């Protein structure tokens, strides 16, 4: 997770300690932390700022409170996302993207969500992230980038396995957005997000399929909290 962060050895100790505090939901003051670790309070603050927060309080509450525990969006009584789960995923993906600022975020998408990768890459680029849509590892390998994140949006969860494997082999994290967490793509990804679709999708007796719409909502929320 720290590939793109340049932390000194002392800062790394602070970083690990802060992560432990967050994981244990244990709020300590900057002074307490600095005393425990025998470092200057400014070192603690410096680490949190390097991670993109305004200070320790900001880092602690943003991380502990899963700030993206937002709302279950509801279009005309259709539940779009199960937010109890997806809010955690939104939070997790936000934190991951922030930590990988400077490293490539490669997004692939297919089917109804075909242009979501292009759309998302553009939005991330506008926010200062190095995002690429539908770009194979081969195209990036001569750029000497630090390994980043690969995101695969695929309703069926049956595509992109080889591409994902290639990215993972080169130390990229993998995130899958599928309609079912038991699909091969989802099961082999570091983080998998399940977004409900319409399982009975046939052209005869066609029922609305909100998968693509929900994926957009999901990423609008990710973008909001970046």
């Amino acid at each position: 997770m720290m590939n793109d962060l340049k932390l000194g050895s002392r800062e790394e100790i602070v970083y690990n300690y802060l992560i432990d505090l967050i994981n244990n939901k244990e709020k300590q003051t900057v002074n307490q932390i600095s005393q425990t670790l025998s470092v200057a309070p400014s070192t603690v603050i410096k680490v949190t700022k390097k991670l993109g927060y305004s200070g320790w309080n900001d880092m602690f509450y943003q991380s502990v409170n899963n700030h993206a525990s937002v709302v279950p969006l509801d279009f005309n009584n259709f539940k779009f996302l199960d937010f109890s789960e997806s809010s955690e995923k939104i939070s997790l993906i936000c934190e991951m993207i922030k930590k990988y600022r400077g490293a490539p975020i490669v997004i692939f998408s297919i089917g109804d969500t075909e242009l979501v990768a292009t759309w998302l890459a553009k939005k991330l680029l506008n926010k200062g992230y190095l995002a690429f849509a539908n770009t194979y590892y081969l195209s990036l390998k001569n750029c000497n980038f630090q390994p980043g994140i690969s995101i695969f949006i695929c309703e069926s969860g049956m595509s992109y396995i080889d591409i994902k494997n290639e990215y993972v082999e080169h130390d990229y994290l993998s995130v899958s957005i599928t309609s079912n967490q038991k699909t091969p793509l989802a099961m082999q990804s570091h983080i998998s997000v399940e977004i409900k679709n319409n399982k009975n999708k046939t052209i005869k007796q066609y029922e609305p399929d909100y998968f693509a719409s929900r994926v957009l909502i999901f990423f609008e929320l990710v973008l909001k909290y970046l």
Partner: protein
Amino acid sequence: MNLTQVEHDILEKLHKELNSGNKIPLKELSKLCNVADSTITKLSKKLGYSGYVEMLYNQHNTYLREHNEFKLDLIDGDLQQTLEQLCLILKDNCNKKNIVIKMDDVSLIENYLVRKLGFFDIPVILTYDYLTVDTISKKPGVAFIIKDRFTHGHYDPNMIKHVIKKGYYIVVMTYDDSVYFHDYVDMFIKINNESFQNINFFNSKILALLEMMLSEYEKVTRDDE
């Protein structure tokens, strides 16, 4: 807990800011409320928090929990009536030349429309050039123009004029209450622009609406058979 009127006002303003998605810093809030920073810090402590930042995040979470059942409407107006009208238009034009005009650089919605109407044997051409519109071997059908607001973005207003001139049936889906070519629009669908934390859900709403339209279309054509 007994709060003073000033303290009530501070909380009210804080909630208003959180409602707009703004996690307002202490200094800005104190300026907004015309109080000293220490008044807000004291209020935070009175409410049991260690300081302002803790209060801010807890109030933010409380706000989100309280709004757990946020509902977004798709359109302003009667949804069922709109869907039925769209189906009639599709039925009338399924053998004509239908187009969707490219309205931004990604064309996410336009491609979705082309792909999904293709499932139902309704050909739609995504176009941004005049030639596509001009070379008509079939009669002009529907021209879909889908854009959140016409006041910004990369699109060619002259293209819209050109399509109108060629006699297409103009269907517009937008947030805008009225568009500058309103007099030439045959069907105007006003997308509801209610949002949450200033997020623009236009694309999501359009995709949901298109899915409903397809389902309705399939139902209507099935009934006809």
